[in-house]
Protein backbone atom coordinates (compact mmCIF):
# COMPACT_ATOMS: atom_id res chain seq x y z
CA UNK A 1 0.00 0.00 0.00
CA UNK A 2 1.08 3.52 -0.69
CA UNK A 3 2.33 5.39 2.37
CA UNK A 4 1.71 9.11 2.39
CA UNK A 5 3.08 11.02 5.34
CA UNK A 6 1.13 14.25 5.61
CA UNK A 7 1.88 15.18 9.18
CA UNK A 8 4.94 17.37 8.67
CA UNK A 9 3.53 20.04 10.95
CA UNK A 10 3.69 17.51 13.80
CA UNK A 11 7.21 16.37 13.02
CA UNK A 12 9.51 15.68 10.10
CA UNK A 13 12.03 12.95 9.37
CA UNK A 14 15.67 13.89 9.90
CA UNK A 15 17.25 14.59 6.53
CA UNK A 16 20.39 12.82 5.46
CA UNK A 17 22.67 15.87 5.56
CA UNK A 18 21.62 16.48 9.16
CA UNK A 19 22.13 12.86 10.09
CA UNK A 20 25.60 12.89 8.55
CA UNK A 21 26.58 15.95 10.55
CA UNK A 22 25.22 14.39 13.73
CA UNK A 23 27.00 11.12 13.11
CA UNK A 24 30.25 13.01 12.79
CA UNK A 25 29.63 14.50 16.23
CA UNK A 26 28.65 11.17 17.76
CA UNK A 27 31.70 9.41 16.41
CA UNK A 28 34.42 12.04 16.41
CA UNK A 29 33.53 14.99 18.63
CA UNK A 30 32.17 13.47 21.78
CA UNK A 31 33.90 15.76 24.27
CA UNK A 32 32.08 18.10 26.61
CA UNK A 33 32.16 21.59 25.07
CA UNK A 34 32.99 23.00 28.50
CA UNK A 35 36.19 20.96 28.68
CA UNK A 36 39.34 22.77 27.65
CA UNK A 37 41.17 19.70 26.31
CA UNK A 38 41.48 18.41 22.78
CA UNK A 39 38.21 16.47 23.06
CA UNK A 40 36.28 19.44 24.36
CA UNK A 41 37.61 22.22 22.13
CA UNK A 42 36.35 20.79 18.82
CA UNK A 43 32.93 20.32 20.41
CA UNK A 44 32.91 23.96 21.50
CA UNK A 45 34.03 25.00 18.03
CA UNK A 46 31.27 23.03 16.30
CA UNK A 47 28.75 24.51 18.68
CA UNK A 48 29.84 28.05 17.97
CA UNK A 49 29.80 27.42 14.23
CA UNK A 50 26.29 26.09 14.63
CA UNK A 51 25.35 29.22 16.52
CA UNK A 52 26.64 31.33 13.65
CA UNK A 53 24.64 29.34 11.12
CA UNK A 54 21.45 29.70 13.10
CA UNK A 55 22.06 33.42 13.62
CA UNK A 56 22.62 33.92 9.91
CA UNK A 57 19.46 32.04 9.03
CA UNK A 58 17.28 34.48 10.96
CA UNK A 59 19.40 37.62 10.52
CA UNK A 60 20.59 37.70 14.11
CA UNK A 61 23.92 37.91 15.85
CA UNK A 62 25.44 34.65 17.19
CA UNK A 63 25.43 36.19 20.67
CA UNK A 64 21.66 36.41 20.45
CA UNK A 65 21.18 32.66 19.97
CA UNK A 66 20.44 30.38 22.94
CA UNK A 67 20.14 26.65 22.33
CA UNK A 68 17.34 25.00 24.28
CA UNK A 69 16.01 21.48 24.63
CA UNK A 70 12.89 22.09 22.55
CA UNK A 71 10.64 24.69 21.00
CA UNK A 72 8.49 24.47 24.11
CA UNK A 73 11.46 25.42 26.25
CA UNK A 74 12.32 28.38 24.04
CA UNK A 75 8.74 29.64 24.29
CA UNK A 76 8.79 29.25 28.05
CA UNK A 77 12.12 30.99 28.65
CA UNK A 78 10.89 33.90 26.54
CA UNK A 79 7.44 34.18 28.07
CA UNK A 80 7.66 32.93 31.65
CA UNK A 81 11.27 34.05 32.11
CA UNK A 82 10.67 37.33 30.28
CA UNK A 83 7.57 38.23 32.28
CA UNK A 84 9.14 37.33 35.62
CA UNK A 85 12.37 39.20 34.88
CA UNK A 86 10.48 42.35 33.91
CA UNK A 87 7.73 42.18 36.48
CA UNK A 88 8.77 45.47 37.98
CA UNK A 89 7.91 47.24 34.74
CA UNK A 90 4.34 46.02 34.60
CA UNK A 91 1.89 43.26 35.15
CA UNK A 92 -0.03 43.00 31.89
CA UNK A 93 0.64 40.55 29.10
CA UNK A 94 -0.96 40.00 25.69
CA UNK A 95 -1.22 36.88 23.56
CA UNK A 96 -3.80 35.23 21.31
CA UNK A 97 -6.37 32.49 21.79
CA UNK A 98 -4.83 30.39 19.00
CA UNK A 99 -1.28 29.92 20.28
CA UNK A 100 0.35 26.54 20.67
CA UNK A 101 0.01 25.01 24.13
CA UNK A 102 3.67 25.77 24.84
CA UNK A 103 2.67 29.44 24.76
CA UNK A 104 -0.88 29.25 26.10
CA UNK A 105 0.03 27.13 29.09
CA UNK A 106 2.95 29.41 29.88
CA UNK A 107 0.51 32.32 30.10
CA UNK A 108 -1.90 30.28 32.20
CA UNK A 109 0.93 29.65 34.64
CA UNK A 110 1.76 33.35 34.72
CA UNK A 111 -1.87 34.19 35.45
CA UNK A 112 -1.63 31.99 38.53
CA UNK A 113 1.40 34.02 39.58
CA UNK A 114 -0.65 37.20 39.44
CA UNK A 115 -0.05 38.49 35.92
CA UNK A 116 -3.01 39.75 33.93
CA UNK A 117 -3.28 38.32 30.45
CA UNK A 118 -5.34 39.53 27.50
CA UNK A 119 -6.07 36.77 25.00
CA UNK A 120 -6.77 38.39 21.65
CA UNK A 121 -9.62 36.81 19.67
CA UNK A 122 -9.25 35.80 16.02
CA UNK A 123 -11.48 36.16 12.97
CA UNK A 124 -12.92 33.28 10.95
CA UNK A 125 -9.53 32.83 9.28
CA UNK A 126 -7.71 32.55 12.60
CA UNK A 127 -6.09 35.97 12.36
CA UNK A 128 -5.94 38.65 15.03
CA UNK A 129 -6.71 42.26 14.19
CA UNK A 130 -4.05 44.88 14.76
CA UNK A 131 -6.76 47.23 16.02
CA UNK A 132 -7.77 44.73 18.68
CA UNK A 133 -4.15 44.54 19.64
CA UNK A 134 -3.81 48.30 19.90
CA UNK A 135 -6.92 48.48 22.05
CA UNK A 136 -5.56 45.82 24.35
CA UNK A 137 -2.35 47.71 25.04
CA UNK A 138 -2.07 49.26 28.49
CA UNK A 139 0.49 51.37 30.24
CA UNK A 140 1.56 48.36 32.25
CA UNK A 141 1.83 45.95 29.30
CA UNK A 142 5.30 44.37 29.51
CA UNK A 143 5.27 41.41 27.17
CA UNK A 144 3.39 40.33 24.06
CA UNK A 145 3.53 36.93 22.38
CA UNK A 146 1.96 36.38 19.01
CA UNK A 147 2.78 33.36 16.89
CA UNK A 148 4.25 33.86 13.46
CA UNK A 149 2.28 31.09 11.76
CA UNK A 150 -0.38 28.83 13.18
CA UNK A 151 0.39 25.12 13.45
CA UNK A 152 -3.19 23.94 12.96
CA UNK A 153 -4.67 26.15 10.27
CA UNK A 154 -1.60 27.80 8.74
CA UNK A 155 -2.68 31.40 9.33
CA UNK A 156 0.16 33.90 9.09
CA UNK A 157 -0.07 36.66 11.69
CA UNK A 158 0.79 40.34 11.15
CA UNK A 159 3.86 40.08 13.38
CA UNK A 160 5.81 42.88 11.67
CA UNK A 161 3.08 45.39 12.53
CA UNK A 162 2.81 44.12 16.09
CA UNK A 163 6.59 44.15 16.42
CA UNK A 164 6.88 47.75 15.28
CA UNK A 165 4.27 48.89 17.77
CA UNK A 166 5.92 46.98 20.61
CA UNK A 167 9.35 48.31 19.76
CA UNK A 168 8.07 51.85 19.76
CA UNK A 169 6.43 51.39 23.13
CA UNK A 170 9.36 49.40 24.53
CA UNK A 171 7.22 46.34 25.17
CA UNK A 172 8.89 42.94 24.90
CA UNK A 173 7.66 41.03 21.86
CA UNK A 174 8.02 37.28 21.47
CA UNK A 175 6.97 35.31 18.44
CA UNK A 176 6.73 31.55 18.04
CA UNK A 177 8.23 30.81 14.62
CA UNK A 178 8.33 27.04 15.05
CA UNK A 179 6.03 26.52 12.06
CA UNK A 180 7.30 29.30 9.81
CA UNK A 181 11.06 28.97 9.55
CA UNK A 182 11.95 27.49 6.19
CA UNK A 183 8.42 28.20 4.97
CA UNK A 184 8.19 31.99 4.89
CA UNK A 185 10.92 34.56 5.59
CA UNK A 186 11.87 34.71 9.26
CA UNK A 187 13.97 37.80 9.89
CA UNK A 188 14.21 38.98 13.47
CA UNK A 189 15.04 42.52 12.39
CA UNK A 190 12.08 42.75 10.01
CA UNK A 191 9.77 41.29 12.65
CA UNK A 192 11.19 43.59 15.31
CA UNK A 193 10.94 40.90 17.92
CA UNK A 194 12.83 40.62 21.18
CA UNK A 195 12.41 36.87 21.42
CA UNK A 196 11.71 34.20 18.82
CA UNK A 197 11.33 30.45 19.24
CA UNK A 198 12.38 27.70 16.81
CA UNK A 199 12.36 23.91 16.95
CA UNK A 200 14.62 21.42 15.17
CA UNK A 201 12.21 18.63 14.40
CA UNK A 202 9.85 20.69 12.26
CA UNK A 203 12.58 21.42 9.71
CA UNK A 204 14.06 17.95 9.15
CA UNK A 205 16.33 18.30 12.16
CA UNK A 206 16.32 16.19 15.33
CA UNK A 207 13.72 16.22 18.07
CA UNK A 208 14.72 17.61 21.45
CA UNK A 209 16.45 20.78 20.33
CA UNK A 210 15.18 24.32 20.05
CA UNK A 211 16.46 27.83 19.68
CA UNK A 212 15.62 30.95 21.56
CA UNK A 213 16.56 34.15 19.79
CA UNK A 214 17.03 36.87 22.36
CA UNK A 215 17.76 40.38 21.23
CA UNK A 216 20.87 41.92 22.69
CA UNK A 217 20.15 43.77 25.90
CA UNK A 218 16.86 42.01 26.54
CA UNK A 219 16.47 40.38 29.93
CA UNK A 220 14.89 37.10 30.86
CA UNK A 221 15.31 34.51 33.61
CA UNK A 222 16.13 30.83 33.51
CA UNK A 223 13.38 28.43 34.52
CA UNK A 224 15.75 25.87 35.87
CA UNK A 225 19.16 26.11 37.40
CA UNK A 226 22.60 24.58 37.17
CA UNK A 227 25.86 24.99 35.26
CA UNK A 228 26.73 28.11 33.33
CA UNK A 229 25.85 26.78 29.87
CA UNK A 230 24.01 28.99 27.38
CA UNK A 231 24.53 32.02 29.58
CA UNK A 232 22.88 30.15 32.44
CA UNK A 233 19.56 30.26 30.57
CA UNK A 234 19.71 26.59 29.65
CA UNK A 235 22.04 24.84 32.08
CA UNK A 236 23.13 21.24 31.49
CA UNK A 237 25.71 19.63 29.23
CA UNK A 238 25.08 20.87 25.73
CA UNK A 239 23.52 18.48 23.22
CA UNK A 240 26.24 19.06 20.63
CA UNK A 241 24.95 16.53 18.12
CA UNK A 242 21.47 18.04 18.10
CA UNK A 243 22.81 21.58 18.06
CA UNK A 244 24.91 20.80 15.00
CA UNK A 245 21.99 18.89 13.46
CA UNK A 246 19.62 21.81 13.92
CA UNK A 247 22.12 24.24 12.41
CA UNK A 248 22.50 22.15 9.28
CA UNK A 249 18.74 21.75 9.06
CA UNK A 250 18.01 25.45 9.33
CA UNK A 251 20.75 26.41 6.90
CA UNK A 252 19.31 24.07 4.28
CA UNK A 253 15.72 24.99 5.07
CA UNK A 254 16.42 28.66 4.51
CA UNK A 255 18.50 28.06 1.38
CA UNK A 256 15.77 25.92 -0.17
CA UNK A 257 12.88 27.94 1.15
CA UNK A 258 11.78 29.93 -1.87
CA UNK A 259 11.76 27.05 -4.30
CA UNK A 260 10.32 24.51 -1.88
CA UNK A 261 7.62 26.84 -0.62
CA UNK A 262 6.47 27.57 -4.15
CA UNK A 263 6.29 23.85 -4.83
CA UNK A 264 4.40 23.15 -1.59
CA UNK A 265 1.99 26.03 -2.13
CA UNK A 266 0.98 24.62 -5.50
CA UNK A 267 0.46 21.14 -4.04
CA UNK A 268 -1.41 22.64 -1.10
CA UNK A 269 -3.83 24.48 -3.36
CA UNK A 270 -4.34 21.42 -5.50
CA UNK A 271 -5.14 19.37 -2.42
CA UNK A 272 -7.54 21.96 -1.05
CA UNK A 273 -9.37 22.32 -4.36
CA UNK A 274 -9.43 18.57 -4.84
CA UNK A 275 -11.02 17.89 -1.47
CA UNK A 276 -13.50 20.77 -1.52
CA UNK A 277 -14.40 19.87 -5.10
CA UNK A 278 -15.05 16.18 -4.51
CA UNK A 279 -16.65 16.05 -1.07
CA UNK A 280 -19.76 18.12 -0.43
CA UNK A 281 -20.26 20.07 2.78
CA UNK A 282 -16.57 20.39 3.39
CA UNK A 283 -14.95 23.62 4.46
CA UNK A 284 -11.43 24.93 4.46
CA UNK A 285 -10.24 26.02 7.88
CA UNK A 286 -7.86 28.97 7.81
CA UNK A 287 -7.33 31.49 5.04
CA UNK A 288 -6.71 30.90 1.35
CA UNK A 289 -4.22 33.74 1.19
CA UNK A 290 -1.44 34.40 3.71
CA UNK A 291 -1.43 30.73 4.56
CA UNK A 292 1.62 28.61 5.34
CA UNK A 293 2.62 26.67 2.23
CA UNK A 294 2.52 23.25 3.89
CA UNK A 295 -0.81 23.49 5.67
CA UNK A 296 -4.17 22.10 4.59
CA UNK A 297 -6.95 21.93 7.15
CA UNK A 298 -10.48 20.92 6.21
CA UNK A 299 -13.61 20.03 8.12
CA UNK A 300 -15.64 17.26 6.60
CA UNK A 301 -19.00 17.87 8.23
CA UNK A 302 -20.88 15.13 10.12
CA UNK A 303 -17.73 13.07 10.61
CA UNK A 304 -15.63 12.76 13.73
CA UNK A 305 -11.91 13.47 13.46
CA UNK A 306 -10.44 10.36 14.99
CA UNK A 307 -12.57 8.08 12.87
CA UNK A 308 -11.41 10.06 9.88
CA UNK A 309 -7.76 9.75 10.92
CA UNK A 310 -8.06 6.03 11.48
CA UNK A 311 -9.71 5.55 8.11
CA UNK A 312 -7.01 7.58 6.41
CA UNK A 313 -4.35 5.63 8.26
CA UNK A 314 -5.81 2.39 6.91
CA UNK A 315 -5.24 3.77 3.45
CA UNK A 316 -1.66 4.66 4.33
CA UNK A 317 -2.36 8.36 4.80
CA UNK A 318 -0.87 9.82 7.98
CA UNK A 319 -2.61 13.02 9.01
CA UNK A 320 -3.66 14.76 12.15
CA UNK A 321 -6.76 16.26 13.60
CA UNK A 322 -5.84 19.47 15.33
CA UNK A 323 -2.47 19.68 17.03
CA UNK A 324 -0.58 16.42 17.41
CA UNK A 325 0.03 17.26 21.02
CA UNK A 326 -3.64 17.36 21.79
CA UNK A 327 -4.69 14.23 19.98
CA UNK A 328 -4.57 12.40 23.29
CA UNK A 329 -7.18 14.81 24.58
CA UNK A 330 -10.86 14.73 23.86
CA UNK A 331 -11.52 18.42 23.50
CA UNK A 332 -11.92 19.76 20.01
CA UNK A 333 -9.12 22.03 18.89
CA UNK A 334 -9.06 25.35 20.76
CA UNK A 335 -7.92 26.98 17.53
CA UNK A 336 -10.92 25.84 15.50
CA UNK A 337 -13.33 26.71 18.30
CA UNK A 338 -11.79 30.19 18.50
CA UNK A 339 -12.41 30.59 14.78
CA UNK A 340 -16.11 30.11 15.42
CA UNK A 341 -16.57 26.51 14.30
CA UNK A 342 -19.25 24.47 16.00
CA UNK A 343 -18.18 21.65 18.25
CA UNK A 344 -19.22 19.13 15.61
CA UNK A 345 -17.46 20.82 12.73
CA UNK A 346 -14.33 21.29 14.77
CA UNK A 347 -14.42 17.59 15.61
CA UNK A 348 -14.46 16.64 11.96
CA UNK A 349 -11.31 18.53 11.06
CA UNK A 350 -8.41 17.00 9.25
CA UNK A 351 -4.97 18.56 9.01
CA UNK A 352 -2.83 17.41 6.11
CA UNK A 353 0.62 18.97 6.31
CA UNK A 354 2.92 18.64 3.35
CA UNK A 355 6.67 18.30 3.23
CA UNK A 356 9.79 17.60 1.26
CA UNK A 357 8.76 14.09 0.30
CA UNK A 358 5.25 15.02 -0.78
CA UNK A 359 4.60 14.53 -4.49
CA UNK A 360 1.77 15.37 -6.82
CA UNK A 361 0.89 11.66 -6.91
CA UNK A 362 0.51 11.73 -3.15
CA UNK A 363 -1.92 14.60 -3.45
CA UNK A 364 -3.90 12.80 -6.15
CA UNK A 365 -3.99 9.68 -4.04
CA UNK A 366 -5.35 11.53 -1.02
CA UNK A 367 -8.05 13.27 -3.04
CA UNK A 368 -9.06 9.93 -4.51
CA UNK A 369 -9.15 8.10 -1.17
CA UNK A 370 -10.83 10.75 0.91
CA UNK A 371 -14.18 10.74 -0.87
CA UNK A 372 -15.05 7.05 -0.21
CA UNK A 373 -13.82 7.41 3.37
CA UNK A 374 -16.11 10.40 3.89
CA UNK A 375 -19.02 8.57 2.25
CA UNK A 376 -18.59 5.53 4.42
CA UNK A 377 -18.34 7.47 7.67
CA UNK A 378 -21.22 9.71 6.76
CA UNK A 379 -23.37 6.69 5.99
CA UNK A 380 -22.72 5.70 9.58
CA UNK A 381 -23.37 9.13 11.00
CA UNK A 382 -26.65 9.94 12.76
CA UNK A 383 -26.19 13.64 12.03
CA UNK A 384 -25.79 13.23 8.27
CA UNK A 385 -29.26 13.49 6.75
CA UNK A 386 -29.16 12.53 3.09
Amino acid at each position, binding site marked *: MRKVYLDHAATTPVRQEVLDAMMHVFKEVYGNPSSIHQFGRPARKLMEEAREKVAKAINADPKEIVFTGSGTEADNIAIVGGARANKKKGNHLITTVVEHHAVLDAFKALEKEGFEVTYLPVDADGRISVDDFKNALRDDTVLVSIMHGNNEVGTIMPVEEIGAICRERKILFHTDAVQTVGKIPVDVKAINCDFLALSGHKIYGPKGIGVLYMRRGVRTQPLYFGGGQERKLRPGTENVANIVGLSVAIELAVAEREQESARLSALRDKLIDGILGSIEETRLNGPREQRLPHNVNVSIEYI*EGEALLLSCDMKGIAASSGSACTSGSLDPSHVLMAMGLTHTTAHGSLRLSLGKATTEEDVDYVIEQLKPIADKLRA*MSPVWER
Partner: protein
Amino acid sequence: MYSDKVIDHFTNPRNVGEIEDASGVGEVGNMKCGDIMKMYLKINDETNMIEDVTFKTFGCGAAIATSSMSTEMIKGKTINEALDLTNRAIADALDGLPPVKMHCSVLAEEALKAALLDYQKKSGKNLGLNEEDFEDWDEQ
Protein backbone atom coordinates in the same frame (compact mmCIF):
# COMPACT_ATOMS: atom_id res chain seq x y z
CA MET B 1 -3.29 1.66 20.45
CA TYR B 2 -6.46 -0.25 19.45
CA SER B 3 -6.77 -4.03 19.51
CA ASP B 4 -7.21 -5.96 16.27
CA LYS B 5 -10.87 -6.54 17.16
CA VAL B 6 -11.50 -2.82 17.56
CA ILE B 7 -9.87 -2.18 14.21
CA ASP B 8 -11.92 -4.97 12.64
CA HIS B 9 -15.23 -3.60 13.97
CA PHE B 10 -14.20 -0.08 13.01
CA THR B 11 -13.25 -1.09 9.47
CA ASN B 12 -16.18 -3.45 8.92
CA PRO B 13 -18.86 -2.25 11.26
CA ARG B 14 -21.77 -4.70 11.65
CA ASN B 15 -25.39 -3.57 11.51
CA VAL B 16 -24.93 0.00 10.36
CA GLY B 17 -28.10 1.77 9.37
CA GLU B 18 -31.65 2.57 10.37
CA ILE B 19 -34.78 0.48 10.85
CA GLU B 20 -37.85 2.10 9.30
CA ASP B 21 -40.47 0.69 11.65
CA ALA B 22 -38.27 0.23 14.69
CA SER B 23 -39.87 -0.93 17.94
CA GLY B 24 -37.57 1.38 19.83
CA VAL B 25 -35.04 4.07 18.94
CA GLY B 26 -32.48 5.54 21.33
CA GLU B 27 -30.23 8.50 20.74
CA VAL B 28 -27.59 9.59 23.22
CA GLY B 29 -24.89 12.19 23.17
CA ASN B 30 -21.59 11.81 24.88
CA MET B 31 -21.18 14.98 26.90
CA LYS B 32 -17.50 14.30 27.37
CA CYS B 33 -16.58 14.63 23.73
CA GLY B 34 -19.71 15.71 21.89
CA ASP B 35 -20.17 12.47 20.02
CA ILE B 36 -23.59 10.96 19.20
CA MET B 37 -24.98 7.46 18.85
CA LYS B 38 -28.37 6.30 17.67
CA MET B 39 -29.62 2.72 18.05
CA TYR B 40 -32.66 1.07 16.39
CA LEU B 41 -34.28 -2.07 17.78
CA LYS B 42 -36.77 -4.42 16.17
CA ILE B 43 -38.34 -6.42 19.01
CA ASN B 44 -40.72 -9.37 18.80
CA ASP B 45 -43.53 -8.31 21.16
CA GLU B 46 -44.42 -11.95 21.89
CA THR B 47 -41.01 -13.43 22.62
CA ASN B 48 -39.29 -10.22 23.77
CA MET B 49 -36.54 -11.26 21.34
CA ILE B 50 -34.40 -8.58 19.68
CA GLU B 51 -34.78 -9.66 16.09
CA ASP B 52 -32.88 -6.84 14.51
CA VAL B 53 -30.68 -4.00 15.65
CA THR B 54 -28.82 -1.24 13.80
CA PHE B 55 -26.82 1.85 14.75
CA LYS B 56 -25.50 5.15 13.52
CA THR B 57 -22.60 6.77 15.26
CA PHE B 58 -20.82 10.10 15.04
CA GLY B 59 -17.77 9.37 17.09
CA CYS B 60 -14.26 8.09 17.32
CA GLY B 61 -12.94 4.69 16.34
CA ALA B 62 -13.72 3.27 19.74
CA ALA B 63 -17.27 4.60 19.60
CA ILE B 64 -17.88 3.03 16.22
CA ALA B 65 -16.34 -0.30 17.21
CA THR B 66 -18.29 -0.51 20.48
CA SER B 67 -21.49 0.39 18.64
CA SER B 68 -20.87 -2.39 16.17
CA MET B 69 -19.88 -4.93 18.81
CA SER B 70 -22.85 -4.13 21.03
CA THR B 71 -25.31 -4.78 18.19
CA GLU B 72 -23.67 -8.15 17.60
CA MET B 73 -23.91 -8.97 21.27
CA ILE B 74 -27.64 -8.36 21.60
CA LYS B 75 -28.94 -9.53 18.25
CA GLY B 76 -31.10 -12.59 18.84
CA LYS B 77 -31.02 -12.05 22.59
CA THR B 78 -34.00 -11.26 24.84
CA ILE B 79 -34.70 -7.83 26.29
CA ASN B 80 -33.62 -9.10 29.70
CA GLU B 81 -30.31 -10.26 28.38
CA ALA B 82 -29.83 -6.92 26.64
CA LEU B 83 -30.55 -5.07 29.87
CA ASP B 84 -27.64 -6.88 31.49
CA LEU B 85 -25.14 -5.71 28.89
CA THR B 86 -22.52 -3.39 30.40
CA ASN B 87 -20.01 -1.16 28.70
CA ARG B 88 -17.24 -3.18 30.34
CA ALA B 89 -18.56 -6.36 28.73
CA ILE B 90 -18.55 -4.67 25.34
CA ALA B 91 -15.01 -3.41 25.85
CA ASP B 92 -13.91 -6.87 26.98
CA ALA B 93 -15.43 -8.43 23.91
CA LEU B 94 -13.26 -6.07 21.87
CA ASP B 95 -10.15 -7.24 23.76
CA GLY B 96 -10.13 -4.02 25.74
CA LEU B 97 -9.95 -0.31 25.05
CA PRO B 98 -7.28 2.26 25.97
CA PRO B 99 -8.15 3.86 29.33
CA VAL B 100 -8.90 7.27 27.79
CA LYS B 101 -11.37 5.51 25.46
CA MET B 102 -13.37 3.59 28.04
CA HIS B 103 -15.96 6.34 28.20
CA CYS B 104 -16.74 5.77 24.51
CA SER B 105 -18.10 2.32 25.29
CA VAL B 106 -20.62 3.94 27.63
CA LEU B 107 -22.17 5.47 24.53
CA ALA B 108 -23.20 2.04 23.25
CA GLU B 109 -24.62 0.90 26.59
CA GLU B 110 -26.56 4.15 26.91
CA ALA B 111 -27.95 4.08 23.39
CA LEU B 112 -29.19 0.54 23.90
CA LYS B 113 -30.89 1.43 27.19
CA ALA B 114 -32.39 4.54 25.58
CA ALA B 115 -33.81 2.40 22.76
CA LEU B 116 -35.26 -0.02 25.28
CA LEU B 117 -36.78 2.87 27.23
CA ASP B 118 -38.38 4.05 24.03
CA TYR B 119 -39.74 0.54 23.50
CA GLN B 120 -41.05 0.49 27.09
CA LYS B 121 -42.92 3.70 26.42
CA LYS B 122 -44.28 2.60 23.05
CA SER B 123 -45.20 -0.95 24.09
CA GLY B 124 -46.50 -0.10 27.54
CA LYS B 125 -44.46 -2.98 29.01
CA ASN B 126 -42.62 -2.29 32.22
CA LEU B 127 -38.96 -3.10 31.74
CA GLY B 128 -38.00 -1.36 34.96
CA LEU B 129 -36.30 1.49 33.10
CA ASN B 130 -36.52 4.99 34.43
CA GLU B 131 -36.49 8.19 32.38
CA GLU B 132 -34.58 10.06 35.06
CA ASP B 133 -31.66 7.67 34.95
CA PHE B 134 -30.97 8.83 31.44
CA GLU B 135 -30.96 12.44 32.29
CA ASP B 136 -28.32 11.65 34.87
CA TRP B 137 -26.27 9.78 32.33
CA ASP B 138 -26.38 12.67 29.98
CA GLU B 139 -24.53 14.80 32.41
CA GLN B 140 -21.86 12.33 33.24
